[in-house]
């Protein structure tokens, strides 16, 4: 039973998957209008390409594959390619290579071991992620939410690997600090 053709039912796509695809997209692009466009384009592409569906993947996975491509396309278009990173942004976290007192990671206690108060954690994470620059969000989403390799991320965003390391480093520093302040509640 590795053929899913019998269960292929485009008439039910919107009912069955629209909300899930939309939530998935929103978590990755943080913009309602954009997320709606991406979901709409996904359904339309799938609809136009429905004859090419061979049933190797489940209908759901097939739709997600199309969606994920659209999300990456969005990041590709958004990236201008001419990236200039201001030097010394890490200066707010480090002084002569050492953590500054304000930026040094504080103990988060049991939060990281116990099952998370999920809704709260995710809504703070979302807000913190929105504060990142677009290009940092793109890097973070592709790496940690789409599980892409650094090499592929560099190609999509048209950035060098040394830019990538700087962007991902800064994104982590900023997100960690933001979560500590707004989720854990340490000022």
């Amino acid at each position, binding site marked *: 039973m590795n053929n899913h053709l019998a269960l292929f039912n485009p008439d039910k796509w919107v009912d069955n998957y629209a909300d899930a695809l*939309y939530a998935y997209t929103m978590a990755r692009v943080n913009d309602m209008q954009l997320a709606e466009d991406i979901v709409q384009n996904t359904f339309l592409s799938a609809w136009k390409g429905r004859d090419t569906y061979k049933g190797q993947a489940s209908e759901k996975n097939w739709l997600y594959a199309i969606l994920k491509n659209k999300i990456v396309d969005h990041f590709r278009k958004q990236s201008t390619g001419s990236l200039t990173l201001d030097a010394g942004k890490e200066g707010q976290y480090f002084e002569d*290579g050492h953590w500054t007192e304000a930026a040094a990671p504080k103990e988060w206690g049991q939060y990281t071991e116990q099952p998370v108060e999920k809704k709260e954690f*995710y809504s703070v*994470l979302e807000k913190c992620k929105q504060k990142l620059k677009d290009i940092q969000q793109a890097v973070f989403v592709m790496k940690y939410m789409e599980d892409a390799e650094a090499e592929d991320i560099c190609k999509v965003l048209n950035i060098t690997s040394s830019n990538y390391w700087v962007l991902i480093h800064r994104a*982590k520093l900023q997100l960690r600090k933001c979560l500590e302040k707004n989720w854990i509640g340490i000022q």
Partner: protein
Amino acid sequence: MKWYRAIWLSCEQATFLMSKKEEGKLAFKEKIQLRLHLRICDFCTRFQRQVRFFTRHAAQAHEHTGALLREEKKEEIRGMMRE
């Protein structure tokens, strides 16, 4: 203690190398340097643990937001798929 100076990382360098490590891009020397740094530095150990925590959870974010597509939009898409 000259050898020690030659391999001791700053916290800035150590946190930077953590990302490279995820990609399997650490040189042998860097691996040793990072391990040594983490054995001694509480702040960077915390940093690593906390970053791991939120990066591991990030991919499931959409399961907890309860975001729904607007009904009007759904109807619009259904309409386009009928044409």
